[in-house]
C-alpha cells in the first residue's frame, strides 16, 4: 500500500522564481492538503483540494496556488518566491468519507530560496 509520495525532496531557487511541488496521495484517498513548515515551527495549513477544487484555504497569499488532477494527485505552485518561502512543504492525504478524517503525511519537499 503506497503511502503519500512527494517530489522533489529538495530544491533550491532564487528570489522571484516560481516553483512547482508534486504530491501523490495514499492509495484510496481522495483529498490532498498542503502545509508549510518553517524551521522550528509546527506545520501551517496552506490549502486543501477535493474533487479538483480548492475547498479550504489558510492564511497564505495568492502567490500560493494549487491543482488537483482526476487521479487525486496534486501540485503546489508558488510564484514570485521570497526568502521567507524557504520551508519544508508537506502534503497530506485523507478520505472524505472516512469516519475519522485522519491525515497521512509525505516526507516533504524542502525548498530553499536564495
Amino acid at each position, binding site marked *: 500500500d503506497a503511502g503519500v509520495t512527494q517530489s522533489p525532496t529538495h530544491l533550491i531557487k532564487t528570489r522571484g522564481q516560481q516553483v512547482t511541488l508534486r504530491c501523490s496521495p495514499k492509495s484510496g484517498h481522495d483529498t490532498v*492538503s498542503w502545509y508549510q513548515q518553517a524551521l522550528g515551527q509546527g506545520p*501551517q*495549513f496552506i490549502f*486543501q483540494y477535493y474533487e479538483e477544487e480548492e*475547498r479550504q484555504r489558510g492564511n497564505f497569499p495568492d502567490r500560493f496556488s494549487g491543482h488537483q488532477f482526476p487521479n487525486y494527485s496534486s501540485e503546489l505552485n508558488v510564484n514570485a518566491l521570497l526568502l521567507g518561502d524557504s520551508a519544508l512543504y*508537506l502534503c497530506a492525504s485523507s478520505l472524505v468519507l472516512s469516519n475519522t478524517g485522519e*491525515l497521512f*503525511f509525505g516526507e516533504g519537499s*524542502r525548498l530553499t530560496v536564495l
Partner: protein
Amino acid sequence: GIQVEQSPPDLILQEGANSTLRCNFSDSVNNLQWFHQNPWGQLINLFYIPSGTKQNGRLSATTVATERYSLLYISSSQTTDSGVYFCAVEANTGTASKLTFGTGTRLQVTL
C-alpha cells in the same frame, strides 16, 4: 481560530526513562492526532485520538475532550524516540480535516 499549546517545549531523557507530553487546546475538537517528526522531516502518525485512551507498544495516549487536553506517554524511552512530537487538532465539523498544529515538544534521548 483554535489554539494548541504543547509542553514541555524541550525534554532530555536518559534511555529507559518515561515521559509525559501534554497538549492543551482551546476549543472542542473532532480530530486530534499525535505525530512524531523524524530527522528527515516526515510526520509519522502515532495516534488518532479525539477522545479516550489508546496504546501502541511503549506509547500510549489519552485525550480528555471535556477538559480539552491530551497526553502522550512514552515508556522505556529509546534513542530512536528522539525527534519532535506534534499534537494537531481540527475544530470544524464536516468533511476532510484541516489540522492546527502545536509548536511541538523536542525530545532528545541520550545513552
